[in-house]
């Protein structure tokens, strides 16, 4: 069990489009500025991490997380600026390094790259990659990226990009190493791969009980042991909304978190989440919706079960009003986080 005071708490956003005070949907540009405002509030309230995910779809405004993070960097002091995720397969590892090393410079060392394969695949056709190279692209690029992190002279060749022959890449970071994690959606192969490179992992737990993932934590540790690489406490990410009462949070979660899940599910031929399934997710699964006390109890139980060292709340799914998103952030920072630490310290 990790020291409850040392557990890291973060917020995740994909740049969902919120409604404004007039109950009107914001523009994508406004939605991006809203995330900057939220990150500033989070920084002031002492939240440890803001992680922004890359998407290329109409319902999410953020396609370029590090640009938004750069904006946040100049207006905040302590918060870690992470992606969540950077879809490495359809990006160029050299460019990813350059952009995040730049962010690291702007933020005095607060940048963190979170690499993933992405659960969406729009970026493949968009950038001219073939989905049938899905595995090869990620495998090669994570390999190159791990080499780039050494910040030395690099010689590399593969099938998915031009070879590098004794090249140096800039800017160098002041710490000599860009913080990097790998996010996984529960594919055992991804867990083993992350461990092979010694990257810390973030588990995306968006449905079902966190218990299912305890064996993945074990897998990560065993794999690292086998490869002789280092491990770090795992992080996990789940959706949630916090309100002053359970009733209000449930209403908001049903209207927005469920709706966004149903919309995505529809594209994959998945039946819409029923009220029973939704209530089950809130009660025993992985939607953190409720009053601060309800969410804190549920979160403390999940952190304990997984032995996690970090949690990230995806706080603004769907078209949740900007005011409600801010309220979630405030309650998370001032009530939930201290309460989770307290509950964990009690036992």
């Amino acid at each position: 069990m990790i020291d409850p005071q040392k557990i890291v708490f973060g917020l995740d956003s994909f740049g969902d489009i919120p409604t404004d005070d007039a109950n009107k949907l914001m523009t994508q540009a406004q939605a991006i500025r809203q995330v900057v405002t939220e990150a500033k509030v989070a920084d002031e309230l002492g939240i440890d991490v803001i992680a922004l995910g890359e998407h290329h779809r109409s319902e999410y405004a953020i396609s370029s997380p590090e640009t938004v993070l750069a904006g946040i960097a100049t207006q905040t002091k302590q918060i870690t600026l992470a992606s969540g995720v950077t879809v490495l397969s359809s990006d160029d590892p050299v460019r990813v390094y350059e952009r995040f090393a730049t962010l690291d410079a702007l933020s005095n060392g607060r940048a963190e790259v979170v690499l993933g394969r992405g659960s969406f695949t729009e970026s493949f056709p968009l950038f001219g990659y073939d989905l049938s190279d899905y595995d090869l692209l990620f495998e090669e690029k994570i390999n190159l990226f791990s080499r780039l992190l050494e910040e030395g002279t690099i010689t590399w060749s593969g099938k998915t990009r031009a070879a590098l022959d004794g090249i140096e890449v800039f800017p160098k970071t002041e710490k000599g190493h860009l913080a990097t994690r790998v996010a996984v959606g529960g594919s055992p192969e991804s867990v083993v791969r992350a461990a092979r490179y010694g990257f810390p992992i973030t588990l995306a737990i968006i449905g079902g009980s966190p218990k299912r993932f305890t064996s993945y934590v074990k897998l990560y540790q065993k794999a690292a042991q086998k490869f002789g690489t280092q491990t770090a406490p795992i992080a996990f990410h789940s959706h949630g909304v916090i309100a002053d009462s359970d009733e209000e949070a449930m209403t908001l979660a049903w209207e927005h978190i469920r709706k966004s899940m149903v919309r995505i599910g529809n594209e994959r031929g998945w039946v819409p989440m029923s009220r029973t399934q939704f209530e089950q997710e809130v009660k025993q699964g992985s939607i953190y919706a409720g009053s601060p006390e309800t969410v804190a109890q549920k979160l403390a139980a999940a952190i304990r079960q997984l032995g996690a060292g970090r949690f990230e709340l995806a706080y603004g799914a769907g078209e949740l009003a900007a005011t409600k998103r801010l309220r979630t952030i405030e309650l998370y920072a001032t009530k939930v986080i201290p309460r989770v630490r307290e509950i964990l310290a009690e036992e």
Partner: protein
Amino acid sequence: MAETLGILGAGKLGTVLGQLAVAAGYNVLIAGSGSKEKIELTVETLVPQAVPTTAAVACQQADTIILALPLGKYLTLSPSALAGKTVIDAMNYWWEVDGPRPDLTDPHRSSSELVAAFLKKSHVVKAFNHIGYHDLFDEPRPHGQAGRKAVAIAGDEQKYVEKAAELVERFGFDPVYAGPLAAGIRMEPGSAVFGANVAADELKKLLADFEKTKRGKEVFLARKKAERN
């Protein structure tokens, strides 16, 4: 002696099915798409009592094989190795993984019919495809317990449908017969059953109501048109 069950696919679904099979008392063999070494650690950790192996060995040693690989890769299966076996098809078309594949969403036939046409000498039954792997993990219950969830089965040969039903039952779910393999389309993505984590009565109703769904109408019209031509 316990019956031996082979699972092809060591991903999210394959490992959860492996856990259920071990709990049900089967000898379980799990194979990925490559070497045994590649999945050893995964199987050892996620399904400790199962044996990691290759697809060839799993097919040789087990009479019943569950397909838990991406549907887009079904042509990589070996029809000769699977000849004479009871083959449980738990695969679905998932465009995020398989890419655009009109052959796998053809309204004229279910994906399991395609699989069966390829595995000519196997006894193909469709099951475990419509309920999410996290629900499979969270929801098994002993026979007769309140709140037990159901898993639909489609197949042409009664003997093998019964075998699949026994598997579903022992895994902790109520089996519900959906009809012949052609009716497997009622359990596919786009149907009201796909993603359903419900009890048997509700599942029967959802299966029966297929024609009322958007996908159901699409399938009905396409098939009617084909009949006329």
